[in-house]
């Protein structure tokens, strides 16, 4: 039975589960990874939740409930309610016990009932997505939520049909998503710049608990404010240049909102963008267009105050918590707005260290809730605890190269088979040298053992097929078998304890490999080039032997010369020289064929097209 992790946000919500030990964000029915926290009742009495509710907001403003999280668990007399009532388009009334209720359609609802409607949609969509019932959930809430707000959040989950396992603070969830619960001690600052709210939390890692040490922020500062700034800037510029006020034109405003958001996103990766809206409006002289350049510098100047303000609030929060900024070990970025490079820079500058932002900032809280769910669920009782190979296993091949058979980090038990051949003519035995390590050259790795497979029937090099199999069982016992496919003759070796190296040894071997990576690569390249050269020399010598009489004497001399110069080049360490010599000899080798054909042509032995035979 899975537990759903839910980030019940002010503007958007998201959900995630643990799947195969890893958290995974679930898409809603509409195929989106976040769901607007909006509920509405349409004119026909139909209840809408999520994106569909949002889409009809302008035609049904009084019955479209958004930002209900601002109201949950508060008293009607709360100054926050007093303030927000002016901003929200729907009607609020005082309930019998002094709480808040919102009017939607012809009914009034407690905020937790509205939140429950959002949670119900998430539950339904999650169940559809994974194809099984979900009865338990972990729901996140802001760190500043008091007992009554947390209780209301829990109640919302229960109304939606969940057994709420925990109401988890959002910053704690973010820290869990980054796995900071595994480290003991240390302080974390979570900088959460969302669409409509800005939250700061200072966390301290205890033994198995994450404690909230300080909170701060601004519940009415968010990415939407930044968008508004951009929109007003465009409007002002347009007014200055064209003398037209776009702020009165709803349609133009809608399009401006879209381009402002686009511009903001684009400027996260580019330094300049173009705001381009043909037919933005029209006047007596005909249609008007909007075309202006907008740069990252302009944007940062525009919203610089907000960013500065956010840093001041961070400073204030730390002061209130009596924690110096130097004491903060990790900074976690949450909320879509933190994608803005200027914000990342400002945070980095203030703390003097890089903030964490590898996990999608829109999803990190939901992921953290799922991680908490995973911890609560505990791992499924697993009789199979599978190990992985800490280092690679392989054999030594021509030129002293280590050929990897089983790469490091492969889950065991596992097996792999590959076919090798001989390096010289009439070779009747091969040595299988088993080794372990990450270096390119065999000599640098740890030798685990070796054995000889003999009795291979004499044949030219490259013809015999020797099948080498590596098999590591669940206990780390490595068996290596070599079999000649012509005779089915087998030889094998068993190496015990191949995977239980000490941690130090593994680390040392990995480090060495890293350290020597460049020279190892060079060595390997040299070895491979030499192998190619050797192969070619063999081929040329064989051709001379086989066709000796038919090759023109001067060509033969040339070949002999080239072979010996390649041989001497091969003994040098100069890869380029060997390569050039190899290419030249290869070109000359083709001359043999040409030479022979032209000789036969001269002697009139030209192949004739087949003629129909007459009897």
């Amino acid at each position, binding site marked *: 039975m899975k537990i759903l992790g839910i980030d019940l946000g002010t503007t958007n919500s998201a959900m995630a589960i643990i799947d195969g030990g890893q958290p995974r964000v679930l898409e809603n029915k509409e195929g989106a990874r976040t769901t607007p926290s909006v509920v509405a009742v349409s004119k026909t009495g139909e209840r809408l939740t999520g994106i569909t509710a949002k889409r009809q907001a302008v035609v049904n403003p009084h019955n479209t409930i958004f930002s209900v999280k601002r109201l949950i668990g508060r008293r009607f007399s709360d100054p926050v309610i007093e303030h927000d009532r002016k901003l929200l388009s729907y009607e609020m009334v005082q309930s019998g016990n002094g709480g808040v209720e919102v009017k939607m359609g012809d009914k009034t609802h407690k905020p937790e009932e509205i939140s429950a409607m959002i949670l119900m949609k998430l539950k339904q969509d999650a169940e559809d997505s994974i194809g099984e019932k979900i009865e338990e959930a972990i729901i996140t809430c802001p760190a500043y939520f008091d007992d009554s707000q947390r209780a209301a959040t829990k109640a919302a989950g229960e109304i939606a049909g969940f057994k709420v396992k925990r109401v988890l603070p959002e910053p704690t969830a973010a820290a869990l998503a980054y796995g900071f619960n595994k480290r003991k001690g240390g302080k974390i600052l979570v900088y959460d710049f969302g669409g409509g709210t800005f939250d700061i939390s200072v966390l301290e890692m205890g033994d198995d608990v994450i404690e909230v040490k300080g909170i701060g922020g601004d519940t009415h500062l968010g990415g939407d404010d930044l968008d508004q700034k951009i929109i007003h800037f465009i409007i002002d510029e347009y007014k200055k240049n064209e003398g037209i006020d776009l702020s009165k034109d*709803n*349609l133009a405003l*809608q399009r401006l909102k879209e381009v402002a958001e686009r511009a903001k996103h684009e400027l996260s990766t580019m330094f300049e963008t173009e705001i381009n809206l*043909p037919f933005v409006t029209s006047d007596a002289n005909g*249609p008007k267009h909007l075309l202006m350049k907008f740069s990252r510098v302009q944007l940062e100047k525009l919203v610089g105050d907000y960013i500065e303000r956010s840093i001041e609030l961070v400073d204030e929060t730390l002061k209130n918590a009596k924690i110096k900024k130097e004491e903060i070990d990790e900074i976690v970025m949450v909320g879509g707005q933190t994608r803005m490079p200027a914000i990342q820079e400002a945070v980095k500058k203030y703390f003097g260290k890089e903030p964490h932002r590898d996990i999608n900032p829109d999803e990190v809280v939901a992921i953290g809730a799922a991680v908490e769910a995973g911890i609560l669920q505990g791992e499924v009782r*697993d*009789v*199979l605890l599978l190990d992985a190979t800490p280092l690679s296993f392989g054999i030594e091949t021509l030129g002293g190269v280590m050929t990897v058979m089983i790469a490091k980090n492969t889950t065991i038990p596992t097996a792999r088979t590959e076919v090798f051949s001989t390096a010289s003519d009439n070779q009747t035995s091969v040595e299988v040298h088993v080794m372990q390590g990450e270096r390119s050259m065999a000599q640098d790795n740890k030798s685990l053992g070796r054995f000889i497979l003999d009795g291979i029937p004499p044949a030219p090099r490259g013809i015999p097929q020797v099948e080498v199999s590596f098999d590591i069982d669940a206990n780390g016992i490595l068996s290596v078998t070599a079999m000649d496919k012509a005779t089915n003759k087998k030889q094998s070796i068993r190496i015990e304890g191949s995977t239980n190296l000490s941690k130090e040894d593994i680390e040392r071997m990995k480090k060495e490999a890293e350290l020597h990576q460049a020279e190892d690569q060079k060595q390997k390249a040299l070895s491979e080039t030499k192998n190619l050269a050797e192969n070619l020399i063999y081929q040329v010598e064989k051709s001379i032997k086989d066709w000796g009489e038919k090759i023109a004497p001067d060509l033969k001399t040339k070949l002999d010369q080239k072979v010996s110069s390649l041989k001497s080049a091969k003994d040098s360490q100069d890869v380029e020289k060997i390569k050039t010599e190899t290419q030249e000899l290869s070109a000359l080798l083709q001359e043999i064929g040409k030479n022979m054909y032209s000789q036969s042509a001269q002697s009139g032995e030209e192949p004739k097209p087949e003629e129909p035979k007459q009897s």
Partner: protein
Amino acid sequence: MSDKDENKKEETKEIELEKLVEERNDYLAGWQRSRADFLNYKKEETERLARTIQFANEDMIKDLIFVMDSFSLVENGLNLSTEGKDQLKPFLMVKAQLENTLKTRGLEKVKISVGDEFSPEVHEAIEMIDDSRASDSHKVIEVIADGYYLNGKLIRPAKVRVSK
């Protein structure tokens, strides 16, 4: 050896056997489970990959829809003479090309016409206005931008003006 000893030995053996059977069942179940997990994982991965491929271009196509919007605005916004319309023709051909290209990539327009009932499933209301022409409320009175499905998934609702 007495009968008693014999019995005891028999008993121990039985207990041992029971334990082994239990263990065997555990192992077999674990093995089956892990085998099933793997096969299911493989199936899910295949599906996920197919979906990823299907929607990999979604972002880019959304950007191109924005360009198509502008094309439509130009087309509808220009009040041209017959001659002017002729001159515009090549540009409309380019627009058609773009439309067709996107169609082959799975893009499909949301069917909509003025007078349709407003439906938030596929429409997004931009504005609500009093319109004496509209006999009924909550009807689409103007399509401001087309909506689109990509391989059956709505990636942009049609943006509309709605009657009051």
